[in-house]
């Protein structure tokens, strides 16, 4: 019976593979950029002032995607909160003694990791990396905070505020783009500055920092929500 089932499923995979082979068969190695990419390559640095073209695309040209993406993380955190929320709405406080070693280590590590994270998203327009990566690093530092300190309420509020403020600022900057420049999320509301320096590329570093903060807060929130599961739910 199991063999029968598996061979039937294999057959499905086979058919899917057959479909994908059609795609693969059509693929030919590229030797030039297509017009859109070429536009980015030629005009991107001029228009956005960012050295990292991926960043310029992510933050400005496809900024709406990024907004959506940030929203998805936001949603995820909210949904996890909703899903794991206990019926009474109050979470049991888990009081766990932090080990001496952990608190000492985190005392040193947290500032370092946070700084790395901030560095990554601040320099997103120049070097590889940016808001997402930096955000992830920030989140890891937050995990350390979580392990180190026992009062999580403060952390939670902080996260919420960071998340909300960075998110709203992101949108406000986007709207400023409509009002002051060419359209929603246009980075030229700030001077483009000297190409290749930290304070260049208009609003990109600002936006990317906000994204970084928001992503960091959101990822941290996800972790926090997961951490707070107490398993006391007696639902149907």
């Amino acid at each position, binding site marked *: 019976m199991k063999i029968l089932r598996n061979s039937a499923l294999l057959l499905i995979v086979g058919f899917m593979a057959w479909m994908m082979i059609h795609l693969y068969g059509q693929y030919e190695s590229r030797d030039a950029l297509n017009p859109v990419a070429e536009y980015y390559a030629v005009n991107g640095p001029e228009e956005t002032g960012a050295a*990292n073209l*991926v*960043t310029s695309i992510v933050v400005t040209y496809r900024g709406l995607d990024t907004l959506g993406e940030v929203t998805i993380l936001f949603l995820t955190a909210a949904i996890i909160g909703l899903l794991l929320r206990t019926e009474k709405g109050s979470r049991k406080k888990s009081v766990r003694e932090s080990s001496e070693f952990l608190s000492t280590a985190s005392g040193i590590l947290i500032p370092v990791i946070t700084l790395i994270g901030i560095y990554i998203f601040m320099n997103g327009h120049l070097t*590889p*990396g*940016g808001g*997402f*990566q930096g955000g*992830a*690093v920030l*989140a*890891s530092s937050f*995990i350390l905070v979580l392990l180190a300190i026992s009062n999580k309420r403060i952390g939670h509020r902080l996260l919420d505020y960071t998340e909300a403020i960075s998110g709203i600022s992101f949108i406000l900057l986007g709207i400023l783009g409509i009002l002051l420049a060419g359209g929603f999320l246009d980075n030229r509301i700030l001077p483009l500055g000297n190409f290749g320096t930290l304070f260049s590329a208009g609003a990109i570093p600002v936006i990317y920092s906000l994204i970084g903060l928001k992503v960091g807060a959101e*990822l941290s929130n*996800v*972790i926090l929500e*997961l*951490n707070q*599961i107490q*398993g006391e739910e007696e639902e149907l």
Partner: protein
Amino acid sequence: MIQIILLIVMAVIMLVMAFIAIHHKSLQVAVIASGIISLFASVIYIFLAAPDVAITEASIGSALTVGIFFYILNKIRHEDIKK
């Protein structure tokens, strides 16, 4: 040429890992295997001139995802113990 050979090796490892992730009995091993897949993928991204993607994949796709997996596995185990 070395790049190509390396790439093939990595691809093979990824596939093997994928099989392990799917068929290994232990969920922990499976999760780690999936993390390894992501990790190798991020190396491939560097080969393919995509450092941004590589960093992201490594930090988010690999580390964070594996972390969440373990978190949940832990919780599930915890549930079992409790009840």
